[in-house]
């Protein structure tokens, strides 16, 4: 029998990290093999005996020598890798035991099984998600520097009031757009990492939108506008939707989709540069939010055409729930007209009114286009778009 391999720890003791060298040396041995441990640390034989016992290795005082055990191997016997590290070839469903582990990690069996109810690829995924996340990071902007808050002169009082009313309306809508994905965020299985990341940035986007619209509303020091019960009832139906797919459809495809037109309208017709800038910047973010909603629902509808029926029912249900409410409150509609008019001359007010009518037509057109992408026939798309909330979001 050949003498066992040796390792020389020199002055290093087990109280100062010698286990790293020992474990490295044991890596090449099989259970039952011996490793003689040399070293000058006076307590090495005592500590080595205790260390071997605690780690399932045998110990022989002569040498001293470790008889390699198999506990460190046994711990990983049932371990399995969490899917593939890259998004190609994602599992259709995340394993409950994968929990928070990184995708691609080797997961020890027997750990906790946290509940992440949103664990199916088709509910969540779209191939564009990693790219959207990268765009979202690159597109982050700082309200303090991206907007020239000092730009523009004071507006006539009632035009300013109209801007403030629109901002007041936007803030509550942005807050709904923040809360809805935030509520789902913690229920999405971490295996679908890019979706979690994208929605986390989306929530941060909405936080910024809340901030800039609030700052524009307060810019001239006046009171904020009104918050109608009908508008908030409309947003409440979004908050009350428990299903991620349906909430995503109502909020991102239909609501934020309509907001793309609204923010474009504000950018174009704003009577002051700050309003134009905040609308412009928010619109860039919203385009990503809509893109994710449309892309993942398109993916889902393609794999399960029956989903379209659920989407249709969701639109009808929300319409029925809101049938007895005012929808967009009068003050917001009127404020949009005044904002677009920019003055109180009858001709300008008339042009402003026409612009708001055009806005609504464009919103309808946008919604129909997105519904068509999800595979709805033209006639169904037109019907569902018409049933969308009058509150826009």
């Amino acid at each position, binding site marked *: 029998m050949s003498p066992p391999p040796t390792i020389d720890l020199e002055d290093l003791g087990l109280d100062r990290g010698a286990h790293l060298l020992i474990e490295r040396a044991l890596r090449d041995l099989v259970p039952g093999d011996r490793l003689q441990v040399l070293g000058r640390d006076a307590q090495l034989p005592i500590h080595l005996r205790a260390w071997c*016992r605690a780690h399932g290795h045998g110990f022989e005082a002569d040498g001293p020598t470790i008889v390699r055990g198999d506990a460190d191997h046994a711990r990983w016997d049932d371990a399995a890798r969490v899917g593939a590290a890259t998004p190609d070839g994602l599992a259709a469903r995340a394993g409950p035991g994968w929990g928070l582990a990184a995708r691609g990690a080797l997961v020890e069996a027997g750990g906790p099984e946290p509940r992440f109810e949103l664990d199916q690829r088709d509910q969540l995924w779209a191939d564009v998600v990693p790219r959207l996340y990268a765009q979202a990071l690159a597109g982050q902007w700082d309200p303090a520097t991206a907007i020239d808050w000092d730009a523009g002169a004071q507006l006539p009082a009632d035009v300013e009031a109209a801007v403030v009313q629109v901002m007041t309306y936007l803030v509550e809508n942005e807050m709904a757009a923040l809360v809805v994905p935030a509520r789902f965020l913690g229920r999405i299985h971490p295996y679908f990492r890019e979706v979690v990341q994208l929605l986390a940035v989306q929530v941060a986007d909405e936080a910024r939108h809340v901030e800039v619209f609030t700052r524009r509303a307060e810019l001239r020091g006046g009171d904020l506008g009104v918050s109608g019960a009908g508008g908030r009832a409309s947003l409440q139906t979004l908050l009350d939707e428990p299903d991620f797919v349906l909430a995503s459809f109502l909020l991102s495809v239909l609501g934020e989709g309509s907001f793309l037109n609204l923010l474009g309208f504000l950018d174009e017709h704003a009577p002051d540069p700050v309003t134009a800038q905040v609308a412009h910047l928010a619109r860039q973010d919203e385009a990503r939010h809509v893109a994710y909603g449309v892309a993942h629902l398109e993916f889902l509808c393609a794999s399960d055409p029956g989903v379209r029926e659920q989407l249709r029912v969701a639109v009808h249900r929300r319409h029925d729930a809101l049938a007895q409410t005012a929808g967009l409150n009068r003050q917001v509609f009127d404020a949009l007209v005044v904002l677009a008019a920019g003055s109180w001359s009858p001709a300008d007010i008339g042009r402003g009114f026409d612009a708001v009518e055009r806005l609504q037509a464009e919103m309808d057109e946008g919604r129909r286009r997105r519904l068509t992408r999800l595979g709805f026939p033209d006639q169904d798309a037109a019907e569902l778009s018409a049933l969308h909330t009058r509150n826009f979001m």
Partner: protein
Amino acid sequence: MSDLVMGAVAYDPKVVTIWEGFKAWLRDERLDFDFVLYSNYERQVEDLVDGRIDAAWNSPLAWVRTRRSATDRGLQARALVMRDTDQDLTSVVVTRADADIHDVADLRGRRVGTGALDSPQATLLPLSHLRRLGVDPGRDCEVQRFDIGVGLHGDHVGGERDAARALMARTVDAACLIDGNSLLFAHEGTMPAGATRVLTQTPAFDHCNMTVTDAGPVAELERFSELLQSMSYSDPRVRPLLDLEGLKTWKEGRVSGYDALERAVDETGFYDDAGHVTASDYRP
């Protein structure tokens, strides 16, 4: 009533987690197992010998008492199983690296810190070891006990840790501890690396065992032993429990590692030959 009832001492809240987990596993394996918890080892030993429980998860000192008490009643006690980590432990007597104490004889006239009075590893065994080396604790040197968790037979690490702290605080000149705690205390900073020196190390001894007597249910105890020994560290159902209980595998019990403790018990008069508690200041 269950077919097999085991006693365990609740020296830590994790004992509930451990034995609830093992109970569920054993019942899955069709052994009708239950357990009761004790606040100290003495009552557990008495209940085992009186036949109120079928097995006792015993400290080494509780084993010594059970053996004596059972023999006195005409029963035979044995160790059914033990953990891999219960075999071949040692204790050490350490001093500060800078102390003017170079061998055991230098402890004469000095103060030695120990764990609780009923701790085999941090009191009874190392003091008996010193006695054999010619320094009689209490006569040749002063003993300062750190009585934490009396009745738990040293399962509570607090007494040993206090002795180590006293050593570093220079209120004692040496401290007695089990080898594993000398490494633990170095890692946690109680005794920083390089701050201590080992004066002496005891010969190897064994620690806990699952004690049973020949009055117990033979077939059930045999099944219990088989099932415990079949627990595999690669099984994710039991691995967290094995980690908590501090073992990788259950081994066949042996009683060859308790001679030194039997001797220490005699030297201090902790129990008499019939297993009565005779230590004067012991209030578990």
